């Protein structure tokens, strides 16, 4: 599809082109070169415009440039506070009102800046002097890159420019209001912790650090690639994570160039290799414990400013089908839970299509009692069986979407009302039959056993495809559709890792893929990732 999109029909008939899909091979080592990032491209763009990429030595020049670039004349949020550093050196503190904490600026930047002793150093070392001896901020750095200084101001930090020095002092004064840590909304567990990520990236990293207290846990900040300059954080375990995988993740995120990035969900779409596949190729979780467990195993996590989710990559089918609760219950119970989950998912995908195939094409395969029950329940139904099935499946999706969109208790009410009243009314009105209603309800129930929301949506897609195949060709159509689906799933890769690993291809995993094994089997880096430190 990607080929078709890029080259049109001509692409299908062009030969000798190797598919350029990234693949994580077991034999790959080392660190391939990193292909650049947003800042480099932004600097290039700045150079192209003829403007300097560096901070000017003159405070007035910096003030004018900031005012122009951040539209200071019509943007009252931009505060450009001039002051005299040590009583006689012209200086400028730049920050955004509302994004920065005024108390921090007043108490730890302006007051010490104005009252300090005159610096006993050269003019071009004033910023370094201020950083070392004057500003009592815990997170501060020097930069001479204009883009960094500007972005810092946009993020809520404060940039201080001192006359005669072509460096700016950047200090973390972010103080905007954000939601506090609360319980997860979609991934509830009974035995596990009840904390969820928030919209504040710093809080989210703290939540991870509280669980992963290792010296190899690394958090790299970078721009998301959107014009809105949102920040993302790539989190991983240095020395454990596969370097090739990490570099590929960085390369893909560095290549994002779009209008805006608001959440990790958008970033996932920009970085996935198979954008037309209904299946997710990364796992989005709102639970810090689940994200931490996967990062500990060698996965890479991505957090985005303003998004209460952590995207974990790569994600396989078995990762997506596991729940946060799995590790907290005893092994037999955990295994049973997994079994129920997979059975539910299988029922959800296959059962409507199987029923349709039997009822339409292979009536001889059903016993007389079952057949007469179906005939009796459909005696006054005017819709053809296949249309009835598709209608009910679509109605189920409709109810599901309605339940999600409306707020809490009202959503539950709509689910109950829709399920009971609409179903009963449809049966009474002879639009649908009771048997088909039960089949669709069971399929829907099975769908809810799947822990990942994106997987639930994907399953609905495949369910409908199988129903259409069964309608057309009975069990033959169903068998062929299942085979093609399996082939397509086998071809799917998540950041170079086969989607069906460790089952197909089989990797040297000692832990069971389907059922939950003993806990110590799970407490090792994930095999399909070929982590650097296997025993870490």
């Amino acid at each position, binding site marked *: 599809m990607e080929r078709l999109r890029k080259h049109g029909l001509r692409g299908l008939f062009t030969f*000798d082109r190797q598919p350029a899909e990234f693949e994580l091979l077991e034999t790959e080592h080392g660190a391939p070169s990193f292909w650049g990032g947003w800042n480099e491209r932004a600097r290039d763009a700045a150079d192209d415009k003829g403007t300097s990429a560096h901070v000017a030595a003159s405070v007035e020049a910096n003030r004018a440039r900031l005012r122009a670039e951040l539209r200071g004349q019509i943007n009252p949020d931009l505060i450009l506070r001039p002051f005299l550093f040590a009583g006689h050196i012209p200086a400028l503190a730049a920050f955004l009102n509302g994004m920065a904490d005024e108390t921090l600026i007043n108490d730890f930047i302006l007051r010490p800046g104005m009252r300090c002793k005159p610096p006993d150093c050269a003019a071009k070392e004033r910023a370094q002097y201020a950083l070392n001896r004057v500003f009592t901020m815990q997170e501060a750095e020097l930069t001479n890159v204009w883009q960094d200084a500007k972005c810092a101001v946009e993020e809520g930090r404060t940039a201080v420019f001192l006359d005669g020095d072509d460096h700016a002092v950047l200090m973390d004064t972010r103080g905007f209001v954000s939601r506090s840590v609360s319980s997860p909304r979609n991934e509830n567990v009974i035995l596990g912790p009840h904390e969820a990520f928030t919209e504040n990236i710093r809080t989210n990293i703290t939540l991870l650090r509280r669980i992963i207290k290792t010296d190899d846990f690394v958090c790299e900040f970078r721009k998301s690639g959107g014009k809105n300059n949102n920040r993302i954080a790539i989190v991983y375990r240095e020395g454990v994570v596969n370097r090739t995988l990490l570099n590929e993740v960085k390369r893909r995120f560095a290549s994002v160039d779009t209008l805006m990035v608001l959440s990790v969900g958008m970033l996932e779409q920009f970085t996935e290799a198979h954008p037309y596949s209904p299946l997710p190729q990364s796992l989005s979780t709102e639970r810090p414990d689940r994200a931490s467990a996967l990062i500990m195993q060698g996965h890479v996590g991505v957090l985005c400013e303003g998004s209460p989710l952590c995207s974990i990559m790569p994600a396989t089918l078995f990762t997506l089908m596991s729940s946060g609760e799995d590790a907290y219950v005893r092994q037999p119970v955990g295994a049973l839970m997994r079994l129920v989950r997979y059975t539910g998912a299988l029922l959800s995908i296959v059962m409507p299509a199987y029923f349709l195939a039997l009822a339409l094409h292979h009536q001889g395969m059903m016993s007389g009692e079952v057949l007469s029950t179906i005939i009796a329940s459909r005696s006054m139904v005017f819709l053809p069986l296949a249309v009835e099935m598709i209608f009910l499946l679509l109605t189920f999706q409709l109810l599901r979407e309605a339940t999600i969109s409306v707020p809490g208790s009202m959503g539950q009410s709509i689910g109950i009302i829709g399920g009971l009243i609409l179903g009963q009314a449809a049966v009474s009105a002879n639009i649908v039959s009771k048997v088909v209603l039960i089949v669709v309800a069971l399929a829907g129930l099975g769908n809810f056993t799947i822990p990942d929301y994106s997987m639930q949506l994907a399953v609905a897609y495949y369910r409908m495809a199988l129903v259409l195949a069964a309608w057309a060709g009975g069990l033959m159509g169903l068998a062929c559709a*299942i085979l093609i689906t399996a*082939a397509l799933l086998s*071809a799917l890769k998540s950041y170079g890792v086969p989607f069906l690993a460790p089952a197909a*291809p089989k*990797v040297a995993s000692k832990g069971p893929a389907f059922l939950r094994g003993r806990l110590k089997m799970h407490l090792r880096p994930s095999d399909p990732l070929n982590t650097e430190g296997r025993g870490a």
Partner: protein
Amino acid sequence: MNLRQGRIGNQEAVAMAFLSCIACGVFSTNTKLTYAAGNGSYLVSAFSATLSLLLVTVVAEGMRRARCKNLAQLYRYAFGPVLSAPAAFITLIALIYAAAMPLVRLLMIMNHYIYILDNVQNVALYLIPCVLTLAWMGLEIIGRTARLFFVVIVLSFFVALIIAIPAYAPYRLYPLLGNGLASTARLSLMGINRFFPALIGLFICGAGVHGVNSSLRCASIAAFGGGLVVVVIQLLLGMTFPYYILSDIPAPLYRLTMALPSGSMFLRADKVLLFFWLLSGLVTAGYFAYSGALLFSGASNMRDIRPASAAVALTVCSVALMGQLNLSAFHAAVSFLQDKVWALLVLPPLLAAVLAMLKKRGAA
């Protein structure tokens, strides 16, 4: 080069060859010939599997000596650039035959027992997307799909055997040595076409199966395991039906599930199992179509496999369909080929291996 090969692990390679051995071993049997004068099909299957393994061992030795990674390289080394393409074409024809025969039998069962009122063309149409998808997507996908369905398909064969347990009677195996030694030897030679394609396919895709040694190891496991399953099936078939009845049954395994009324009524296992067996036939067809295309592309120096794999896949499906139609010329060709196809399959690689061994070592 776009050969869609990639790399597959041992389990994927074994699963692919194992399933193909079972599908061909069970559904490519010529019942009229095999059960004509006594029930020795289980012996024939065992001998055929062993012979096939011996033959691929010779081919592997030839490839090892010539330092070839796959069969196409061996052909080019042994026959030269001009003759390698015709030799590959002969093997391709034999592979198409081997891929189509299980589908012919499965289609026939489908048409006779499941889709009784439908045209066979309508039923056969469903094969095309499956075989085409697998052959087009390449070795990795075929291997992984085979690995995915492996346990389920093998279990489906055993379920059929378990259902019919009350019907087994050892006295029906008489005469024990089948049709006599000469006939058994002849049938064993002819039966090579049921096991050899699955094994030689691994050497055709040798580069993707991590070389000759790995291919031979996987082939040995597949021949032993697949051969064992086929032998067990044939043995139990022989214990269920007398040989003079078996020779008139075109689909003995399907009839096995119906040997007992209770067996066929158990969730209609007779019909449900058939669709699992169909999956094995489709995976086999995809595997052989891809292998044939890869061999031909390699021997004729084509740099893109997709035109060849699409053409071979469509040919396999067409042959499977023609097997159901009343085309006298086609049936005459199949009758002519069926007792010679083993030679078509075996001779080119064997000859290439022998030539490679005779040539100066390391000249590749």
